[in-house]
């Protein structure tokens, strides 16, 4: 279990940087607004960052042994499929996680 001092440090660092990211640009508003690099980055950063985060979260998955990443693949497929179909964020997250949790508990047993 992480120490209290470590968790407090994480909290302070994350809170300070997050606030700075929200506050500092207001001071440089004019230059930011006119910068084309900023506009280009703001357009393409979010999608890429999210893709990287998904890969990061899947880093522990072993596709060479049973169940070959099937649990994660199903969870993501259910999430993405439902989202493309219904456009409902919560429905997708709950159904995708539900499918994952169910497979996690029952799939290994099915494979012996």
């Amino acid at each position, binding site marked *: 279990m*992480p120490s209290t001092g470590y968790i407090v440090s994480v909290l302070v*660092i994350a809170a300070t940087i997050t606030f700075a990211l929200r506050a500092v640009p207001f001071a440089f*508003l004019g230059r930011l607004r006119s910068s084309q690099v900023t506009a280009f980055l703001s357009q393409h950063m979010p999608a890429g960052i999210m893709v990287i985060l998904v890969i990061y979260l899947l880093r522990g998955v072993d596709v060479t042994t049973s169940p070959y990443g099937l649990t994660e693949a199903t969870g993501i497929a259910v999430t993405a499929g439902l989202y493309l179909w219904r456009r409902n964020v919560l429905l997708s997250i709950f159904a995708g996680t539900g499918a994952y949790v169910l497979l996690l508990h029952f799939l290994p047993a099915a494979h012996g």
Partner: protein
Amino acid sequence: MSSHMRTARGEPAPPQDRKRASDIRQALAETLPVGVGMFSLGITFGLLVVQSGLAWWWTPLFSGLIYAGSLEFLLVGMLMAASPLVSIALTTLLVNFRHVFYSLSFPLHRVRGKAAKTYAVFALIDEAYALTATRSADSFSSLRIIATQVSLQSYWVGGGLVGALTGRALPTIDGLDFTLTSLFTVLAIEACRSGRDVPAPLLAAGCGLFAQLVAPGQMLVVAMTLYVITLLVRYRFTRPQENANA
């Protein structure tokens, strides 16, 4: 009795209180749909915190002070993996970097008072930006903007508290942290659709897999830095005309 307060046109006089009440009512009505989502997601965050073995009261501290949903989920995992503070700082910087661009259209000039302005900037989350950065927000009162943001934060912190407090009574559920993978999958689809750009997510996937291979311990930081560099290189080569003038 009320007839004494009517104006020549027969309309009730509009007192300041009525305007204030209507501002708050409008803010509450507007935040309700997204608030339900934030409350539910807040519950899963509270559950994740206590099921990871952390004390329940860390939930309102994280939700109240950092107040950046997807990062908070990510931090719980990084905490449990005892990630170095440098990684925490760089991950925060890169995951929340998008907030830098919110200043471009958030109507901060409408907010009155130093404390209110500070809070408005602190609570400038994705949802607050989405609800206030439209053109019509230029007519929003200071109170309406602040009421919108306070209401959103209440949903998030409130949901977290409910999840953290009920989670202690529930048996530990393996795999609940998959909510984060699902959340980022949805956000990735949404961002890809609005970006209408095929190479960006593919380049990101390439950066992610490469970083995982060469630096598995520092995957996030390496991948995100590589991705920003590839974007800058792309910018340099796809927009030669604009750059010529810069």
